[in-house]
């Protein structure tokens, strides 16, 4: 990936303090379009806060968030979702009283329009989204569970459904918060395959993850954070050998 290509996302000296404690301090980074970018660091490093700052669930105390050349620093999360930023959470956060198919439909639905008359009369002029729905369920391997309520799924299945919901929105930028945490080997393979598939369709991916195998396999670019600061970045092979990174992880 040439370094002068246009970044889809840019953080400029972003800082977030929670009552005097800074979770993220003065972090700048660029994510190139079409990349899979990994965010790594020890527990409490500020990775999830950073992801929240990009998604809009956390608003920064200072600095700027630029997405496709647009300043989105103060844009609320739902507005960011509508311009193509999709995310998952550390806990799956599926809608437990809905079926698997309905959960994925929330990702497919266009939430910009709220047509109450249409909803009350039951007249829906829009074409059926059945084909889209099936494609997404196949991609994350939950099609055979389509009609099951989410409350009856296993942990791994919930994670696949939540990832499917985020992918279904056809985002330009997909933010994944520990997608592989707690997954079995088979589910893990399905997850990495799904992430690769999404990227091959042109989506840029940012992953927060503890599983180094997954990170090293998937990412072209890795950003290392420690105690709220960026302590290194680069290609996987460079990061693996960086002394600063080893120090942060191993505490030597």
């Amino acid at each position: 990936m040439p370094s002068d290509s246009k970044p889809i996302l840019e953080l400029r000296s972003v800082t977030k303090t929670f009552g005097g404690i800074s979770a993220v301090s003065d972090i700048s980074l660029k994510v190139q379009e079409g990349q899979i970018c990994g965010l790594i660091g020890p527990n409490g490093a500020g990775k999830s806060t950073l992801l929240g700052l990009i998604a809009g669930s956390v608003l920064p105390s200072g600095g700027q968030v630029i997405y496709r050349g647009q300043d989105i620093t103060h844009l609320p999360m739902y507005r960011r979702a509508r311009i193509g930023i999709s995310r998952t959470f550390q806990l799956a956060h599926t809608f437990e009283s809905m079926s698997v198919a309905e959960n994925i439909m929330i990702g497919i639905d266009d939430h910009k329009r709220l047509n109450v008359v249409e909803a009350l009369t039951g007249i829906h002029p829009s074409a059926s989204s059945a084909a889209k729905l099936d494609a997404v369920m196949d991609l994350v391997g939950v099609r055979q569970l389509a009609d099951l309520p989410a409350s009856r799924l296993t942990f791994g299945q919930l994670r696949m459904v939540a990832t499917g919901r985020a992918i279904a929105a056809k985002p330009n930028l997909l933010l994944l918060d520990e997608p592989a945490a707690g997954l079995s080997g088979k589910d893990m393979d399905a997850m990495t395959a799904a992430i690769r598939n999404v990227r091959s369709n042109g989506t840029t991916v940012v992953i927060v993850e503890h599983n180094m195998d997954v990170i090293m396999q998937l990412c072209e670019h890795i950003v290392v954070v420690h105690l709220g600061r960026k302590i290194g970045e680069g290609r996987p092979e460079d990061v693996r050998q960086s002394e600063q990174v080893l120090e942060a992880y191993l505490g030597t």
Partner: protein
Amino acid sequence: MKGGSSKVLSLAALVLAALPFWGNDYHVTVAVNLCVTLILTLSLNLVVGYSGQFHLSHVTFFGTGAYVSAILATQFGISPWLCLMASIAVSGLLAALIGAPVTRLKGLYLAVATLTFSMFIEVLVNQGGTLTGGGYGIQQIPSLTLAGYALRGKYFYGVALLALAATLLLLRNLLRSKFGREIIAVRDHPDAAEASGINPPLIRLTVLVIAAGLAAVAGWVHTFYHLILNPELLSPEWTFIWFFMVLVGGIGDTFGVVLGTLLLTLVPEFFDFAAGQTIFGIGVLMVIVTLFAPRGLSGVIADLLRDRRAITHAQ
């Protein structure tokens, strides 16, 4: 469960539709009041059950619908049919006004804020002078007419049934739509809903406005059946009674809410309870339901059916 509940509902619809042929005036009054109460519990359930907001001002939207209709028809001579539109509009607007500032409040805070609003409106109407009739209410409301015929008594009953049927149909459509999914998503996980592009406060507010519009329809039916308004109908205690009907039947479940409303409306009527006895009975029932059947009657029935199916399977 789905097949069973639709059979029960069809049977209930048949009994209700046939009522004027065998019932007397008293029966018709009970049935009209039942239709009104069902519209109110179903719309309240949309807010507290499906969208998960503990709004305690439902009686205010009902009362607003009733009063706007009565005032317009009695003092301004406006056609009762136009009054229906005006009632829905004013009640919906009031819901938007009270709803907008409180969409970010949750649980008890929301309950207290909306209950206080409800009490405020009750006082306002009681002090409303000649416009609202103050403590005397409004009398001599003109009847609804259709093609020159006044619809009174059992002839009005058809209008009440139609309003109830329309409510059931609208709610069914709503819950099956994209908007229905958005309502459940916001209730289950507001953060995840927002991450998918849904604006939770807007969804909550829209649900409240729709429920207020339906409550206004109930108010309109009440006004043009009884043709007299008593300010007592604005008492916040009504919201609690409807809320208990929803809880006893099974919150967030249309069939359960219908069942709970039928039970708590018809049983006191059948045994001719005094108002105090009814409240006492509902209180005792609430304690029992909370302790032994937190999902209400529909939850108990679903469990029983599942057990029976399991036993048949085993045999």
